[in-house]
């Protein structure tokens, strides 16, 4: 007996929400980034669950793409953060507000 689809969706949305919470409250850019990855993982979980419960393999295949994109995104994002650190000497998000007003 596998758990119902609703359970997986609920779990996935809970993980997503936790990741979102992290993006909102943390000040360290790297931790924010990690929470973004968490959100992506939650999305992949939902996709796999749907694919399983609909009997097709399309959802699984899609996860491939997501993983690839996530990897590329992490690489570029971290490069940006490092460049940002070089100019600002900080990675605290609330000190990087030169677009203010």
């Amino acid at each position, binding site marked *: 007996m596998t758990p119902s689809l609703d359970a997986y969706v609920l779990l996935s949305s809970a993980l997503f929400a936790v990741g*979102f919470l992290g993006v*909102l409250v943390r000040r360290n850019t790297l931790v924010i980034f990690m929470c973004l990855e968490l959100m992506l993982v939650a999305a992949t979980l939902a996709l796999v669950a749907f694919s399983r419960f609909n009997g097709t393999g399309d959802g699984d295949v899609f996860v491939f793409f997501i993983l690839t994109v996530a990897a590329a995104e992490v690489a570029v994002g971290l490069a940006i953060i490092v460049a940002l650190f070089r100019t600002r000497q900080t990675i605290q*998000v*609330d000190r*990087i*507000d030169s*677009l*203010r*007003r």
Partner: protein
Amino acid sequence: MTPLSTALLVLLAPLGSAALIAALLPRRGAAAAAVSVLAATVVAAGALSLALGGARFSGAVEWIRFGSFSLSLGFRFDDLAALMLAIVGVIGLCVHVFSLGYMRDDPARARYFWGLSIFMFSMIGIVLADNLFMMFIFWELVGFSSYFLINHWRERTSASDAAKKAFIVNRVGDFGFILGIIVCYWENGTVSLGELGAAHAAGTLVYSRLIPLLLFCGAVGKSAQLPLQVWLPDAMEGPTPVSALIHAATMVAAGIYMLCRIEVLMVAPSLQVIAWVGTLTALYAALCAVVQRDIKKVLAYSTLSQLGYMVAAFGMGSAGAAMFHLTTHAFFKALLFLGAGSVIIGCHHEQDIFRLGGLRTRMPVTFWTFTVAVAAITGVPFLAGFYSKDAILALAYDTNPAIFALLAFTAVLTAFYMLRLWKIVFLGEPRSESAGHAHESGLSVTAPLALLAVLSAIGGQRGAYARAFGGVFSGIGEPGGATHGIVLATSLCVLAVGAAAALAFYSTDGTDSLQVRFPGVFGFLGALRASFDTAYDYYVARIQQRGALILNFVDVVGLAGVVVRGLGGAAEFVGFGLRALHTGRLSNYVYWFLFGLAVMWAYAAGVL
């Protein structure tokens, strides 16, 4: 040279002179004077040739068109215009020549002649205009010229105040005038005098009581009738030739002229009103004239009184009688003013009559010409004023006995104050240094006086006028036998009574006998004179000023503050609020993102 082009030359010569003076000669007084006098000569020659040559014509050219409304400029040269143009031309020339001598030592002479030229242009425009809009344009120009010339000695505050007063009071009258023009256009579809006349003949004219009364407002302002007469005495601040030309002979007569032009629009009730306004003005002004000290002020009130006569004559139905009196009045009033001017410069600018005296021997030419003028105005038989005044009194006797009585009494007062003036200024012994050293001025001063004296003497011959300007004078009826006798007797009587009383009552010792012997009467008359000014002052200062302050408050606080700056401030406020959203902080932006997402969800879920 066709009559039309002569008329055009007459109209534009003064304008050309003004332009020339303004452009090239603003500091060259002598040259400006010469140019202006030349233009006046051209005007006089042209006017007389047109008037006496019998040419009568009209022509117009369209100027502006807005859809169905069109404004045209044109000439309407009929008998009435011919007569008026002749008066304006002759008096204008006399005044210009007189000014050569009078203003010889004035540093701003060029500016003065510029003003005179502009005035001549505007006045001729009024005379020749063939529709009410065009007349109104030149009407306003004449008002401007009057303002400019009263204000000639602009370093005096009394002069600037008088000029402003003249202009503003005129403006009040002109407001009624333009309303009348608009209502006339609304009712009749036209303001062209020719078309109105044709409609009147064909019986298709729309008559209403309102139109003539509104148009009369213009005459009340310009010709200084009650209650807008307050500006004319103050206008004596201007140079004396200006007073002679503008405020005696021509501009103030423009109101009468305009009334005669719109005669076709008149209805009986309006005429009643007009007649009474004129009569009361005549009486009031004569009463005020009795207590004046300044030679020019006496003449100003005399002008007011005579204008009242003309308006009353028109109101009683005879435009011809009004124009006749206007013509004779122009001659002798201009003569009186120019004579006063001669006295003033002869006595080194002394204007108080109680400091003059004994000028009979010292300034003989002035004395004799002034005497002729006084005789004319009081109605000495066979001089000009006698005939015109008799015509009016006869008309009054036949029409309205009450008005006849009042006008007769006014004639007594006229004789009274004119003889008072004559006696105190010219007879007796000099009462001051300047009077003692008085002397005649040169030919430029005395020649116009002589010419005008001749005209005042012979200018009452109705037959000659009727031949030349038949259309105007046909309206004056020949009085019947009994009326003729009674009126003749009355006018001789009032002349004798008034003159004898004045000569007997007033002494030449330098005091005002009325003030000394009947101080109550003197005080009453003085208060009567000042009553209008006091009332206007009260109204303007208390009532109108309060209203103006309230409006100013509404404008500054309401419109400029709330509406204009308020709207700007509201936009600024919104912008300020929006600016606060740009915190630069990532988390804030994510919150806003979530908010947008929630709104979209709510919308999709049908909640919103």
